């Protein structure tokens, strides 16, 4: 029996090539897309799950709310982690991490290695995390201040092998012993690093590591079990509540912290990548909403493909009706017929799956690039992936095969064989259902089209908007370690001699990067009366440390006051510039000349005055409004040299820059990037989403077109006799096509109406995520409508043209 079914099916497939290709490739496209989305989501959801007992690992965070402020930071003060390590080890193992702001280079064996990611960590590092150790020395790993851990990548670069434990490396003129080599941090970790220094080394330089101070430590804890975790959280919360009460009592006169509330958050490590949106994240995270969007689209595409199959299979069933009738006369019952067609649908799904795997493999290079992943087909052999594939095949097989199988198994034998089946003539429900299928397909495609048009428009708007400074022709040279800063003035002087270089400046950050938030004091603010309430004299601002030339080089516009000037020697030690937003947010009256005190990580606070107000510029993405910013000259924090070039003979200029670099910093590796490129990276996620939408819209339209073709085929087949009679009675080709396409036009218009509201709602929300955005106009909607009508009518016309052109005598004879 099976043999017989396989024969009939395969021969039918081969005989009806167009139908089969549409069907198999439609399903294959749908499957390939869903597999890519699955792999992407699977990878996004796998973050940090490689740690042993990852369910028990949390990042400790504090959340505060008062007046109109909301503070949620990824970091805490050092004292919190210290207390946990020393007093709460019965509940959890704790480890603090500090991200090294300006990572130095490592030297050993006459080679150097410079990695942008280095951290300090407590000696409890491996009690919390389980990054695999490949080679280690006896005893503790991070207890001594001269102990250092390096990644496989670094060990191989410096020593040619991972067996590097016990070797010495030189960093910033100090010698360290490699106590262990760990495997490279996997891509699916929410933070990456190649070198780990001991927290004890930091303690030698900065005595505040274990006491109250700046919120710069990432505090991770691994609770012994869930109940211990809950107990610990409750205990910590109680301490915090008591502290907050005291603050509120002290504040009862001044009301600086009206309504102050605080919470300790235990953020599961596996949630950080997708769900955490705290300030000062270690790396830019994924986006859970995007995952949900991709998931929905993946499902849409699968449904589209299944609808196509159903549509085409039932449409082609007229052709199979005779076979079904004969089988029934020969003794097949409805069950046999059902099994035959459901097996056929499974066979087609399996065939499509094979093709889709080829498609997936072929699309990996492109997909990985725009998704920023390293996905491989091998990942499909993992347990979850296999479960997914099997369930998709079963789901798709049933979803697409069920209706046609039921539909066909119910054909009446006598009708099929003798009365010549006129498909769906007596089956209004069937035709109605098919119309619903086409409307849903088009509604999904139109939704995606509108979204694509709008996303593209917003992205273009971002690209072309005035960001308030000139990011073109700016070369960024990353400095490595403190030693580089020492030689900066000499290097700068030499660079300025090179023709084609307009200006050179050290800077702590480049636009597009996260600018750190710091507290500064403005004593005048505390004294100013604002509605008879005293205000805090502390303000939170993002900070940019930069040289004299920085503001000129970028073409920033000063609104009031002046910029830094080399002629004013005091500018390097007592001048601050703030932006418009800072003035507005903190309601600073007559800011020029106001006193400002910066004391972060300084023995003696830096006391100075505001000398100028810079016009707001977009140093962060358009997702946020421009935050208050403070700029001052502070070489200790310099992380880059910014070189403004005139753009002529760029290669020669770069070569000269390199020569000058090695002249002054022979040991520091030279690398460069262009600011405009790195600035654009802040929209990577948005562009990625845009790309995903472009791609999916294309697939959806393709599938919807195929579906429509299927319906058109069905309806023209059904109306063949009618067309012939109309022709015999004198109808023109155009007239016949008009009659036939009218119905489809109506279906597509209905689909448009259905798609508009969800699209409007979705886009309104998406655009709300941008502080600076386009208006959601009608143009995208109208364009999508025109587009869908064009595609739809072209597809239908193709089929109806063939039908309308056919010789009526032939048609009527065979009918």
């Amino acid at each position: 029996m099976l043999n017989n079914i396989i024969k009939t099916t395969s021969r039918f497939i081969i005989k009806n090539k167009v139908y089969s290709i549409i069907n198999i490739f439609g399903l294959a496209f749908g499957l390939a897309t869903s597999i890519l989305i699955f792999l992407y989501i699977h990878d996004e959801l796998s973050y940090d799950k490689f740690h042993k007992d990852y369910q028990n690992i949390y990042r400790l965070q504090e959340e505060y709310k008062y007046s109109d402020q909301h503070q949620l930071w990824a970091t805490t003060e050092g004292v919190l982690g210290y207390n946990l390590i020393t007093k709460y080890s019965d509940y959890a193992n704790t480890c603090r991490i500090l991200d090294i702001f300006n990572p130095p280079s490592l030297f050993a064996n006459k080679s150097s290695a410079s990695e942008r990611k280095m951290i300090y960590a407590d000696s409890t590092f491996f009690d919390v995390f389980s990054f695999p150790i490949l080679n280690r020395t006896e005893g503790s790993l991070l207890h001594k201040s001269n102990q250092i851990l390096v990644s496989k990548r670094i060990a191989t670069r410096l020593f040619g092998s991972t067996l590097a434990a016990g070797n010495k490396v030189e960093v910033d003129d100090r010698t360290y012993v490699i106590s262990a080599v760990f495997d490279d941090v996997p891509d699916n970790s929410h933070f990456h690093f190649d070198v780990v220094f001991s927290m004890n080394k930091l303690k030698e330089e900065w005595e505040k590591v274990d006491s109250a101070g700046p919120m710069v430590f990432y505090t991770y804890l691994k609770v012994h079990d869930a109940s211990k975790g809950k107990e610990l959280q409750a205990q910590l919360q109680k301490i915090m509540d008591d502290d907050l009460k005291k603050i509120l009592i002290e504040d009862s006169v001044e009301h600086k912290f009206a309504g102050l509330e605080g919470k300790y958050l235990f953020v599961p490590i596996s949630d950080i990548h997708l769900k955490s949106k705290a300030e000062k994240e270690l790396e830019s995270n994924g986006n859970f909403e995007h995952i949900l969007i991709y998931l929905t689209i993946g499902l849409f595409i699968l449904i589209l493909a299944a609808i196509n199959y159903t549509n085409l299979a039932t449409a082609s069933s007229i052709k199979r009706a005779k076979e079904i009738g004969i089988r029934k006369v020969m003794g097949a019952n409805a069950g046999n017929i059902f099994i035959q067609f459901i097996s056929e649908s499974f066979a087609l799904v399996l065939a499509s799956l094979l093709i889709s795997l080829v498609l997936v493999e072929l699309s990996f290079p492109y997909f990985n690039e725009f998704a920023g992943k390293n996905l491989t087909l091998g990942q499909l052999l993992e347990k979850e992936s296999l479960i997914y594939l099997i369930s998709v095949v079963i789901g798709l097989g049933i979803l697409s095969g069920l209706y046609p199988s039921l539909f066909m198994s119910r054909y009446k034998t006598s009708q099929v064989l003798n009365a010549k089946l006129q498909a769906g003539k007596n089956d209004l429900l069937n035709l109605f259902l098919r119309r619903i299928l086409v409307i849903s397909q088009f509604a999904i495609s139109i939704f995606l089209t509108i979204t694509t048009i709008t996303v593209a428009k917003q992205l273009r708007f971002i690209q072309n908007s005035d960001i308030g400074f000139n990011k073109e022709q700016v070369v960024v040279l990353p400095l490595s370690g403190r030693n580089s800063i020492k030689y900066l003035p000499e290097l700068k002087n030499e660079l300025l001699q090179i023709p084609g270089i307009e200006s050179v400046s050290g800077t702590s950050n480049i636009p597009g990067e996260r600018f750190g938030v710091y507290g500064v004091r403005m004593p005048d603010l505390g004294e100013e009366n604002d509605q008879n309430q005293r205000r805090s004299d502390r303000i939170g601002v993002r900070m940019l440390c930069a040289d004299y030339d920085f503001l000129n080089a970028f073409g920033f516009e000063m609104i009031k006051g002046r910029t830094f000037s080399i002629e004013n020697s005091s500018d390097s030690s007592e001048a601050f510039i703030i932006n418009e937003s800072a003035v507005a947010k903190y309601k600073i009256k007559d800011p020029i000349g106001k006193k400002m005190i910066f004391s972060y990580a300084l023995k003696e606070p830096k006391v100075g005055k505001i000398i100028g107000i810079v016009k707001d510029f977009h140093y962060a993405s358009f997702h946020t409004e421009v935050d208050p910013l403070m700029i001052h000259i502070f070489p200790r924090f310099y992380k880059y040299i910014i070189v403004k070039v005139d753009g002529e003979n760029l290669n020669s200029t770069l070569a000269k820059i390199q020569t000058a670099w090695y002249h002054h910093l022979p040991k520091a590796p030279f690398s460069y990037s262009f600011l405009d490129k790195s600035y654009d990276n802040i929209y990577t996620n948005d562009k990625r989403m845009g790309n995903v939408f472009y791609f999916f819209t294309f697939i959806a339209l393709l599938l919807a077109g195929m579906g429509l073709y299927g319906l058109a085929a069905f309806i023209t087949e059904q109306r063949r006799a009618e067309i012939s009679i109309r022709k015999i009675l004198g109808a023109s080709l155009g007239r016949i096509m008009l009659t036939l396409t009218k119905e489809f036009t109506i279906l597509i218009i209905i689909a448009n109406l259905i798609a508009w509201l969800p699209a409007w709602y979705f886009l309104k929300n998406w655009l709300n995520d941008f502080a600076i955005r386009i208006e959601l106009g009608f143009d995208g909607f109208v364009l999508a409508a025109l587009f869908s009508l064009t595609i739809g009518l072209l597809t239908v016309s193709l089929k109806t043209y063939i039908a309308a052109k056919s010789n009526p005598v032939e048609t009527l004879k065979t009918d």
Partner: protein
Amino acid sequence: MLKTNGLSKTYRNAEVETQALQNVSLEVKEGEFVAIMGPSGCGKTTLLNIMGLLDNPNKGEYFFLGQETSKFNEKKRAQLRKKNIGYIFQNFNLIDELNVYENVELPLIYMGIKGRERKRKVLSALEKMHILHRKYHFPQQLSGGQQQRVAVARAVVGSPMFILADEPTGNLDSAHGEEVMRTLNDLNKEGTTILMVTHSQRDASYANRIIRLFDGQIINENILQSFTKKT
């Protein structure tokens, strides 16, 4: 063996009601060759469909091998059909995607007959119909006469007690038509009961008995050959 008692069948469209059969009572005995004749639309095919267990009447009784089947559902009818009836159609109704051998094999598959036995039966049926040399050909590669021989082979391969033929020569030229009729005649002589719908007086002349239908009613019966004599 086959007996109808007051059979009626009405087809209903939205507004039109067509009475295809009215109060038809007849009996077919074992070994008979009965022809049903009448003008187009007189209800011949409807009667054949009901007697072939492809359809149910609206009214009346139908005894098939002694069982009253007029209320049988499709599943029960299919059970009886596949064991006892072979069908031959005017337009052959072969499955285009299956070759000659596979088409003939089809009823045996649904009867659940094992592979080796199936092969023996199929080859024997094809040989009997002189079409064995064409067993790997597909229907569209055969002439009408050959196709109908395949259809006959398919009808007899399961050794049914009855063969129902719906205008078996309607799509054939006279020579091929003659050939098919002789085959049916031979089958009848071997003991198979045949019920045939036809327009052709010549085809009908092969039958023992002709039943004439007009507007869904039997108008007369002609006994052409003495059935009793023959048996």
